[in-house]
């Protein structure tokens, strides 16, 4: 019975390290936000401890996996873990997409006097017209221009979609045990990811410096930067995953049959890809 040899580690030293790291990180972040002098230092210390924890924890898991301690059932548990983690990430983005839809479909038209908002508009914000993009009746953040969808964002869409193809090619290579092709396509995926991130950074600088579009540009700036920003953060995390997996591929880890670590990173990469499609359509184009 595969079940009987389910691997249960005796003790775990990394979780408590992670908890202490998270605690210091959060205390630092809160202090920093409140202009406390120790804030940035604690923040950095906490982040460093968390990084050490992640590195150490994954190193343990990789060692155990390479040592053959995991059976089929453990593999399935990891798959559940990753799937449900990605689902939680989807719901996190859903909150921000929800905010975007609510503003565009409901609250901005109400401010402009539609429906029950007639008196709000007449008494509080006379003359405010509901258009999108908007920075609100008080024109917060000053005049701004938006980034047209069918320019760099379209290019970025193509880059991310292509990276979805290259990682699949890498997967096929892995399943055919073609180590050279595997590493090649993984490196190609990482290069595409880095190009995407460079274009996004360029776009942010351009928005702040030339377009007057900032996080403070009312509800448009808020939704634009929070959605693309959290997406960018997830692309960075995904890229780090891809880099680690590529290094492991180069070291000869993973077999034709047994390569869940690779698949988890690939799933995550497809997830950031799909989120981007939502962003491209609802933030940039429509």
């Amino acid at each position, binding site marked *: 019975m595969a079940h009987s*040899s389910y691997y249960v580690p005796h003790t775990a030293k990394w979780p408590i390290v992670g908890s202490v790291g998270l605690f210091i990180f959060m205390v630092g972040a809160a202090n920093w936000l409140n202009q406390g002098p120790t804030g940035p230092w604690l923040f950095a210390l906490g982040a460093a401890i968390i990084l050490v924890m992640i590195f150490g924890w994954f190193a343990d898991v990789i060692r155990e996996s390479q040592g053959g301690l995991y059976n089929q059932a453990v593999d399935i548990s990891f798959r559940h873990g990753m799937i449900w983690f990605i689902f*939680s990430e989807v719901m996190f983005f859903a909150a921000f997409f929800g905010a975007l839809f609510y503003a565009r479909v409901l609250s901005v038209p*109400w401010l402009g006097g539609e429906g029950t908002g007639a008196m709000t508009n007449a008494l509080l914000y006379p003359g405010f017209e509901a258009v999108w993009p908007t920075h609100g009746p008080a024109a917060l953040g000053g005049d701004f221009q938006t980034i047209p969808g069918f320019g760099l964002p379209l290019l970025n869409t193509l880059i991310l979609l292509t990276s979805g193809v290259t990682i699949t090619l890498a997967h096929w290579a892995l399943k055919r045990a073609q180590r050279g092709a595997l590493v090649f396509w993984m490196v190609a995926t990482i290069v595409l990811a880095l190009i995407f991130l460079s274009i996004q950074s360029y776009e942010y600088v351009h928005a702040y410096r030339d377009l007057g579009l900032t996080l403070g540009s009312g509800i448009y700036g808020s939704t634009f930067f929070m959605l693309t920003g959290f997406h960018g953060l997830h692309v960075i995390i995904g890229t780090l995953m891809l880099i680690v997996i590529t290094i492991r591929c180069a070291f000869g880890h993973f077999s034709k049959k047994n390569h869940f670590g690779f698949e988890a990173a690939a799933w995550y990469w497809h997830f950031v890809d799909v989120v981007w499609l939502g962003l491209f359509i609802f933030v940039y184009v429509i």
Partner: protein
Amino acid sequence: MSQDTTAHHDDHHDAHHPTGLARWLFSTNHKEIGTMYLVFSLAMFLVGGAMALIIRAELFAPGLQLVNPEFFNQMTTMHALVMIFGAVMPAFVGLANWMVPLMIGAPDMALPRMNNWSFWILPFAFTLLLATLFMPSGGPSSGWTLYPPLSLQGGNSLAFVILAIHLMGISSIMGAINIIATILNMRAPGMTLLRMPLFVWTWLITAFLLIAVMPVLAGAVTMLLTDRFFGTSFFNAAGGGDPVLYQHIFWFFGHPEVYILILPAFGIVSEIIPTFSRKQLFGYTSMVYATASIAFLSFIVWAHHMFTVGMPLGAMLFFMYATMVIAVPTGVKIFNWVATMWRGSMTFETPMLFALGFVVLFTIGGLSGLMLAIVPANFQYHDTYFVVAHFHYVLVTGAVFAIMAAVYYWLPKWTGHMYNEKLGKIHFWWSTIWVNVLFFPQHYLGLAGMPRRIPDYAVQFAEFNMISTIGGFMYGFGQLLFVYIIWQCVRGGEKATAQVWEGARGLEWTVPSPAPLHTFDTPPLVDDSVAVHKDTLA
């Protein structure tokens, strides 16, 4: 090779088990982690209870008596956060940790290291949260819902509270992922989905709810954080945002959260009533479907928490009717519990008493919920003590009573000793009488118009408030008896048998009491003779 490592692994199971603090800090064992969750929960229950007593003491008589209004508001805010995220949720996760592997015949949780992390984030999260009370600007005072713009106008506590909520969310999500993975992947051969005990079923659905909505709460409070510190305008109408947006996002989390707090309680009661009625649960399959229906409906009723905020008429009608529909699956459950008892050979040990108290008193809370669902009536009841009475009936005599029932029910399995039955019964009757003295008058206060979250009130509310406060203190101090009974049972007492209760069925009663550190290393074979419920579809 793999057999080799297995044998090696088993040899070293107990030989090197760490002792002292290391045993708890580094534990990967579902029973030890479950115990830590339950102890933590009990501690937070007492902390949150002390805050409740400060609130009740202030409300004993009209006028400002003991604390200043700012501190009173901090107490109402913190009481809720501590009780929801610190007491009730960790208690259910602790029960799941202890019982789910035992009930499905698994050797441990699916992801044992992550299990440790889920727990050990919590003490740090609550240190962060509770520390705000000692800061110069005090703790959060906007109510646990943190509605903007009020919550954005407080002192330094906001950043700490939001980051503490993030930590709690990380903990909950990881705990929920672990429970789902365990239930879906670690069941013993023959333990089909429709043979699972109802506690396992309700937790499976609860875990799904947790993963679906905790990230939404994280999103909502992140928007608060950026509105306060980074100049965004999500909730600022001047920038084109809307404070009402926060309420929508918050309650999209908040209503499923309410069911996160009650579905495992349904599961517990569905375990206990059959045992002490010596009958199978009536309508097992309908219980599963009712639970799933309630979970589904929880996603489409959120705006009933905010009827007075100003919404299109169509939205109000939709949310009113959707809310009332919840009464159908809930009614199915209550019918099934009563039908299980019908013609059973019932006995009334403490777990059964608490379960029965749950059925009766939770139903009262459910009915006041129906009253609140009616939009025109809600306009009158909103933000009054009627709401306070309603959710304390479902959360105290609902969730907390179920947790207490579960503790009495499984304590002999955990400790190997029977608790003191006489004291248990006294604890039940004491709690039931005083909790009603505490909360029932609040219905009248609310209907008469007393607003919630206000430290002072008009003199016509004096008598009922006085009665309520007396009930509060009697109920509150009565819980020290609960602590004593647990302590006594851990220390010693009559030896418990493996089955513990005459009518108990299911895998958890096939292992010795106390359950050894490692159980079901070799999975049991489950068929209809062992399973709590016969799988009619298998």
